[in-house]
């Protein structure tokens, strides 16, 4: 039984935000709720033994190598990140100061495949454009389990023919006890 079908509900409605919900509040005649939250995939991680880890791409120090700060015209930035075993990729958020936006891909070395999809874009001219849906986070319909050894590669490409200040955050749930969630600043 899902959270929405339980009566009374099994937990406080922490994930029920109108801006992340869709569907009617009741089915005629049945009074059955037909309303779902885009944050539903996060429910499994709400009170579990996971620590939040957020990967920032590109780093602000990289952006500051240009004046004004940003990625060079049509430039590409690559980054790499190592996660403990059994980590999950849950969501991402992006922002581009230039309307042309950026494309990105996240490659899972263990799976030898792309983690989210082949390529996504935060820009203005494709079917996978997300810039008109600004805000955060964009939840994956199903959390992605990062395959051992937990090494991810990211590529972000500036689609503007000018310096573009853009950044994205990739949200992970990482099992505690492996350097995260222990109050250890140096890991």
């Amino acid at each position, binding site marked *: 039984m899902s959270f929405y079908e339980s009566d009374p509900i099994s937990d406080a409605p922490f994930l029920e935000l109108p801006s992340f919900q869709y569907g009617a509040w009741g089915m005629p005649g049945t009074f059955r709720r037909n309303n779902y939250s885009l944050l539903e995939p996060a429910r499994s991680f709400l009170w579990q033994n996971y620590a939040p880890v957020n990967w920032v791409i590109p780093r602000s120090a990289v952006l500051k190598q240009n004046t004004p700060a940003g990625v060079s015209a049509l430039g590409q930035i690559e980054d790499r990140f190592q996660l403990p075993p059994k980590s999950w990729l849950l969501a991402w958020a992006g922002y581009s100061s230039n309307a042309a936006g950026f494309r990105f891909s996240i490659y899972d070395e263990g799976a030898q495949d792309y983690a989210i999809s082949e390529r996504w874009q935060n820009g203005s001219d494709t079917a996978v454009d997300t810039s008109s849906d600004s805000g955060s*986070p964009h939840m994956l319909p199903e959390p992605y389990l990062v395959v051992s050894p937990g090494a991810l590669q990211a590529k972000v490409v500036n689609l503007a023919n000018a310096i573009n200040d853009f950044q994205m955050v990739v949200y992970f749930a990482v099992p505690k006890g492996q350097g995260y969630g222990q109050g250890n600043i140096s890991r």
Partner: protein
Amino acid sequence: MQFDYFGNQLNPQAFSARTGKYFNDYTLTANQLITNQSITLTGQEMYFAIMRLMSVQTGAFRVSVYTSTSERYQYGTQNATTDRVRNECYFGTAQRPAVLPVPIIIPGSSAIMMDLEDVSGGTNALHLVFEGARLFPLGK
């Protein structure tokens, strides 16, 4: 199961959760970077779970959020960094405030810490809100 920073199991069924907010105002001059800005919790709750981040600002800024428990949550590459991210990514927008897919749970005796950097090039007034659940032991 949920464990606190000291390895003790934190069972949400053993707590009553009440929604709560912690917030503060900051003013940055053009391109100013201020570090170690803190919002100290009241300490009445045993834990505070940060679930949503909201902001009102007169200009864009970058932020790094961490806690007085010496825990950082933003990483720029391998190994921890003090990297900062655009406010649109971390605090969302007026229409869609940011939701942390995994809440940051910190003891009620700790503080929310921030490094703030103006990128608007002008004076920047910030109002930052951290919304979540205050966890009280049942019976308290």
